[in-house]
């Protein structure tokens, strides 16, 4: 028989306001096994924990029930408390009377009654708890970073700096990501390439970092400390060791009609190309959909011209398998499709562009060599209208309900840069709100509005009408002057909402980590564990977790690296104590459990059993590798003879919980 202590927490007024904690503590006193029960304002505080430790010693407790917040919050805390008082940490159970009772039920009577039932349920379980010990597993001291944008680059550099090996997997032929496409960065107007490309070079030169560009994650197996990842290195059709990045092939290629992805499709590139001048690695790649030689065997001009004989049309994808201790997801974002926003005439007029396209149009390495020209006729524009929140803060279902966070600032930047370079150009900005929290951000916006004479109009745009004379008529409302406005512009720039890179869904599935309704990866705790995913060993860096600008992304990337370093610094990890195991006397070695195990933790051995009377029998029985078992319990339900059970969530324990709940 257990000797159980029950500790009811008030959580200040969080629980005590809608649950009569004294009545709960009193009501459970007569439960089987309970020898002590009390209540206290904050059980998780040092005084509260001391109270538990003291009660364990004074009353010789063997089990503890804490009626408090969710076990996802403080189970670990109270397990440690119990351990420090000399009892096994797995003899602690939590009754969640905050998230499941006090926060959702307003009626004290109803709440108290439910709290008592939940406490009884936890007591019923603890009565059947047994001491457990966790096994230990080794940590592979190597990290994987998925995504080679500024987030991935920063995480990888920081991890490598601490002395650990890092691999970066990037789907594009070069690292650099979105930041490489930007012209200038707010609020200092540094040139993005000037601050990013040295970091890209650092990555290439760092001997601890291995780059897999033009590669994808094929498969992920394993668990924290021991991931096994298959990487598909897509065929570049180039011998990477031979290519010097001279670019002769690009001039030789006759198939020049491919859309230049780096310039957001604003100009064309040949079938064999290097994405941009500072690409890392500076190696060409062939687009197999476009290459005449690969498509129909006729051409081969680039191979003839290549001075280093690097071209190989027969190359195929290669699968690399590597082991990692930790994985950082830094898959970034894209701008949303504007198909549902016909009112802005994006698909009708070339002169309606997204802000990311404008970045390329203003960039010295862009399609217009940095001179701002109208895409339709290459003329100098005289009037430009910016429209904010295109698809952001949109509850109509066409766009995204969230704020994309970066648009107010980059639009102020664009306006300022245009007015600085071309003082004759009039700039109008339609906005719902201007949101500029951040160091020197509001000052930056005010400079745009006050010093640069940018015409900020509070209101939304109803429609953009392309005119026969090539101009764009913007019809919007001015909420401050309460009037309709019509503006004839040469160009319209849409601050298009950003969304997570769509491939992140597949990555999240491979990593078994969760994703929210907007496809952003979920963090382990919104406030206190913002860079960890709920799946141990998976970390989140950059916009894949939520919209953010460059400084925030870099901070998060470094925070991520700190977490990874903390993990890789350990030689072993405490495994999961709640593992499965068979009752060998009942097991007949049927193999059903091994078939459902997602980790391959179950094997079979022939074992000798005594039958009595000096006789023995050899039977095949299952065996669970405790280091590999993650404790899901799939095998326990599949087992036809009921031999398999899960420690910590045993059949008897859950049955006891069901009974306690159903007791009326």
């Amino acid at each position: 028989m257990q000797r159980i202590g029950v500790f009811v927490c008030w959580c200040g007024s969080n629980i005590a306001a809608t649950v009569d904690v004294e009545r709960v503590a009193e009501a459970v006193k007569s439960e089987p096994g309970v020898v002590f029960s009390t209540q206290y304002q904050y059980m998780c505080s040092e005084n509260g924990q001391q109270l538990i430790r003291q009660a364990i010693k004074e009353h010789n407790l063997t089990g503890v029930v804490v009626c408090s917040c969710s076990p996802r919050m403080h189970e670990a805390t109270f397990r440690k408390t119990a351990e420090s008082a000399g009892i096994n940490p797995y003899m602690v159970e939590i009754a969640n009377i905050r998230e499941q009772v006090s926060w959702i039920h307003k009626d004290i009577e109803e709440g108290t009654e439910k709290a008592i039932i939940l406490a009884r349920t936890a007591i019923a379980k603890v009565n059947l708890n047994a001491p457990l010990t966790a096994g230990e597993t080794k940590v592979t001291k190597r990290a994987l970073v998925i995504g080679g944008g500024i987030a991935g680059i920063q995480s990888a550099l920081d991890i490598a700096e601490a002395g650990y090996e890092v691999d970066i997997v990037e789907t594009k032929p070069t690292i650099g990501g979105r930041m490489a496409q930007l012209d200038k960065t707010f609020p200092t107007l540094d040139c993005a390439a000037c601050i990013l490309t040295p970091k890209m070079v650092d990555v290439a030169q760092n001997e601890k970092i291995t780059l897999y560009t033009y590669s994808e994650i094929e498969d992920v197996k394993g668990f924290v400390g021991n991931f096994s990842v298959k990487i598909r290195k897509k065929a570049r059709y180039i011998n990477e060791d031979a290519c010097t990045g001279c670019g002769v092939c690009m001039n030789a290629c006759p198939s020049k009609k491919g859309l230049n992805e780096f310039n957001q499709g604003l100009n064309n590139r040949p079938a064999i190309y290097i994405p941009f001048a500072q690409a890392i690695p500076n190696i060409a790649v062939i687009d197999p959909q476009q290459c005449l030689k690969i498509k129909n065997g006729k051409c081969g001009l680039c191979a003839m011209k290549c001075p280093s004989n690097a071209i190989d049309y027969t190359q195929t994808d290669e699968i690399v398998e590597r082991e990692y201790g930790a994985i950082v997801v830094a898959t970034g974002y894209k701008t949303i499709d504007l198909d549902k926003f016909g009112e802005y005439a994006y698909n009708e007029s070339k002169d309606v562009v997204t802000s990311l396209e404008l970045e390329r149009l203003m960039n010295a390495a862009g399609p217009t060599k940095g001179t701002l020209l109208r895409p339709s006729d290459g003329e100098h524009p005289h009037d430009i209208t910016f429209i904010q929140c295109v698809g952001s803060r949109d509850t109509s279902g066409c766009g995204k309900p969230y704020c994309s966070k970066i648009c107010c600032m980059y639009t102020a930047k664009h306006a300022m840069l245009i007015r600085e370079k071309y003082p004759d150009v009039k700039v109008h900005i339609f906005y719902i709100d201007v949101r500029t929290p951040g160091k020197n951000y509001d000052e930056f916006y005010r400079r745009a509005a006050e010093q640069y004479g940018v015409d900020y109009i509070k209101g939304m745009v109803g429609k953009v009408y392309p005119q026969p004379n090539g101009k764009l008529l913007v019809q919007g409302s001015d909420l401050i002057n309460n009037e309709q406005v019509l503006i004839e512009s040469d160009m319209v720039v849409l601050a298009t909402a950003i969304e997570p890179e769509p491939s992140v869904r597949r990555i999240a599935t491979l990593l078994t980590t969760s994703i929210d309704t907007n496809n952003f990866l979920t963090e382990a705790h919104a406030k206190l564990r913002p860079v960890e995913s709920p799946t141990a060993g998976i970390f989140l860096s950059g916009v894949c977790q939520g919209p953010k600008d460059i400084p925030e992304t870099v901070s998060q990337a470094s925070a991520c690296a700190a977490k990874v370093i903390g993990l890789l610094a350990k030689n072993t990890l405490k495994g999961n104590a709640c593992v499965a195991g068979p009752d060998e006397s009942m097991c007949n070695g049927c193999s059903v459990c091994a078939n459902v195990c997602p980790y391959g933790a179950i094997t079979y051995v022939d074992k000798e059993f005594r039958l009595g009377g000096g006789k023995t029998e050899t039977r095949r029985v299952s065996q669970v590798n405790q280091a590999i078992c993650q404790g899901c319990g799939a095998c326990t339900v599949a087992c036809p003879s009921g031999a398999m059970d899960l420690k910590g969530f045993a059949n008897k324990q859950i049955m006891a919980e069901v009974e306690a709940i159903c007791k009326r």
Partner: protein
Amino acid sequence: MQEVKEYTPLIVAFCCNWCSYAGADLAGSSRLSYPANVKIIRVPCSCRVNPMFILKAFQRGADGVIMCGCHPGDCHYTSGNYYARRRMSLLFSMLDYMGIERERTRVEWVSAAEGAKFANVMNEFAKTINELGENKRLEDLRCK
């Protein structure tokens, strides 16, 4: 005249630790209420829910049983929710055959980010069970 006490049905909810239990926590921290007669049992994964647990619940007088897990493809243990889905569809049709209405059993996928969905599902399920009333089918098996 004897006072007729309104019957409060009893609902047992099995929630996986990684998605649905966290979804319930989010419903709690967002103060989204659902009826107090919903009682949650935490399991590591929806695939840990043995059909016996559900039978036991009905036998002991539960009026509805709901099992929540991670969305298909998002299982923390890769594939546990697929096993659970198959097992439950078999079990629920058997229960239906035994006279426990289909509406008394349910499988729902609730992610850790879906606090509002959790509360909605529980409100809706509780409403359905309220309408169905007491589950008497397994009463003779109860050890009353």
